[in-house]
């Protein structure tokens, strides 16, 4: 069953920049779709367009169908009920995405209470349980800490806990590992894989890193200049890339088993 269908999506900004130019996406329930492309290819704008979170000067065209409902025509109230509740989001830089003025458990509980009739205490308990689940040690005590008191990886775990506390049908993860150290990246990917197995949440995984897609996604869409240039099952795209651009993206991933290149190739040389 298709959970999210995007048809001919366009996003134009008041400055005249066309960030997304006719994009089609399909994501089945419980599946992981990797959306790959270099920065500026329109992948983050696409994710914000799905949730209706683009700045006011952006014009969105085309269709975004989620669970049978057309999101681009939904009013703010109905959209708000979907956000966090059925479609949740994890962003790139967890430090700037968490409010520095509130303890982490409060920020998780706040998301929970936005959609459930729950008291402060009950919501706090949910938050602590979620923190435990994403692997924060001593969650009970750390729940009252502020974002700046956490490491980068732990902050991203908090973001994931916040996104998953309402058991959404779709998780949009926009570059969830980019701002993190390499070893921490692997841990966060493991966590996402594990949580996906447990909850069956569909994930739209946005990244510039083909390596991240390879480890997690079922399907992959390669974006360039606001369009999809290649799509298919991860295995096919990785082993038989049709587009030189995709081959370029793949060549940017250093491989442990491949020959060591003298210098990492740039995309400009590849295309």
């Amino acid at each position, binding site marked *: 069953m298709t959970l999210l269908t995007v048809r001919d999506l366009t996003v134009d900004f008041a*400055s*005249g*920049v*066309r960030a997304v130019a006719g994009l089609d996406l399909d994501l089945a329930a419980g599946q992981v779709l990797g959306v790959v492309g270099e920065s*500026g290819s329109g992948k983050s704008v696409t994710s914000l367009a799905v949730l209706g979170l683009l700045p006011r000067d952006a014009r969105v065209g085309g269709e975004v169908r989620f669970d049978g409902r057309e999101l681009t025509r939904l009013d703010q109230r109905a959209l708000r009920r979907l956000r966090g509740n059925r479609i949740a989001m994890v962003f790139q830089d967890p430090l700037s995405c968490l409010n520095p003025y509130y303890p982490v458990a409060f920020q998780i509980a706040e998301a929970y209470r936005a959609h459930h009739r729950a008291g402060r205490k009950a919501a706090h308990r949910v938050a602590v349980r979620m923190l435990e689940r994403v692997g924060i040690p001593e969650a009970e005590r750390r729940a009252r800490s502020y974002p700046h008191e956490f490491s980068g990886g732990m902050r991203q775990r908090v973001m994931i806990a916040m996104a998953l506390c309402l058991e959404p049908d779709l998780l949009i993860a926009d570059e969830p590992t980019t701002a993190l150290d390499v070893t921490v990246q692997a841990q966060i990917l493991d966590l996402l894989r594990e949580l996906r197995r447990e909850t069956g949440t569909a994930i739209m995984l946005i990244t510039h890193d083909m390596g991240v897609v390879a480890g997690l996604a079922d399907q992959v869409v390669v974006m360039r*200049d606001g369009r999809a240039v290649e799509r298919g099952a991860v295995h096919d795209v990785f082993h038989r890339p049709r587009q030189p651009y995709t081959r370029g993206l793949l060549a940017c991933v250093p491989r442990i088993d491949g020959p060591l290149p003298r210098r990492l190739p740039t995309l400009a040389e590849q295309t």
Partner: protein
Amino acid sequence: MSARAAATTDTGSRTAGTAQVTVLRRLLSQRGTALALAAVALLVLVALAAPLITWLTGGSPTAFHGEAVDPALGGLPRGTAGGVSAEHWLGVEPVNGRDVLARVVYGARVSLLIAVLATAVSTLLGTALGLLAGFLGGWADTLIGRLMDLLMSFPSLIFMIALISAAPGADRRLLLIMVLGLFGWPYIGRIVRGQAMVLARGEFVAAARVLGASRRTLLLREVLPNLTGPVLVVATMSIPACIATEAGLSFLGVGVQPPTPSWGQMIASAVPWYASDPAYFLIPGVLLFVTVLAFNVLGDAVRDALDPRSKPR
């Protein structure tokens, strides 16, 4: 792709010369700013041409006109709106009947001169000390930083009054310039210090250092030119502040001394007459308000035009 390419060249390859033209064009493209610029230009013109104007209207800022006031009414000007007549276009002062127009244009001279010179003093002090603090760091930074904190935590108005009233006999105009400059420089110094700190660590300064440039050359050739923007903004903002403060001090009786006219002092002497002769406080008051407003609009516009982040509205 083409849109992005255009965006890059637009911000990337702008030379210094065209940048200045752009700033000026941005300033003039807004109606409010153009109006403010015109008001300031007119004011400067009036101040410069004060003797010419008084020669034309036949008034003198210091001559008494006993015939224009009515002793029976306690010295209230004869006629309407503060004694407006063919000889006295804006009326006369109560009691001694000095020509208001002449005093106002000479007052503009005094106010502007003091504000501009005080701003010059505070800009010079602030740039020099801020540059030293930001560029040298260490003990120089600590010393200058503390001094700035101290000066900014003083209740400056009372302190200025104390300073001025403790020095009787000195030329008030000179004293005002020094005092306004003394209390104004930390605001410029703070910004210059912050910018200098960033610039001193900047790559092009590092590059110049590697090439063997001396400290002096670095300061004057590399850092100073990059500070003109922020300094220009703060200096533009400082002029209306100085005008307002000078008028305030004159209003409190520690500013410019009569017979030299100043707007603040005119308003102060109008206080006892505000109910019977409102024109007397309205004329210098409105002029003061318009002048400060024009400079403030200009300051905002210069800041917006120089700040690459802000979009023209």
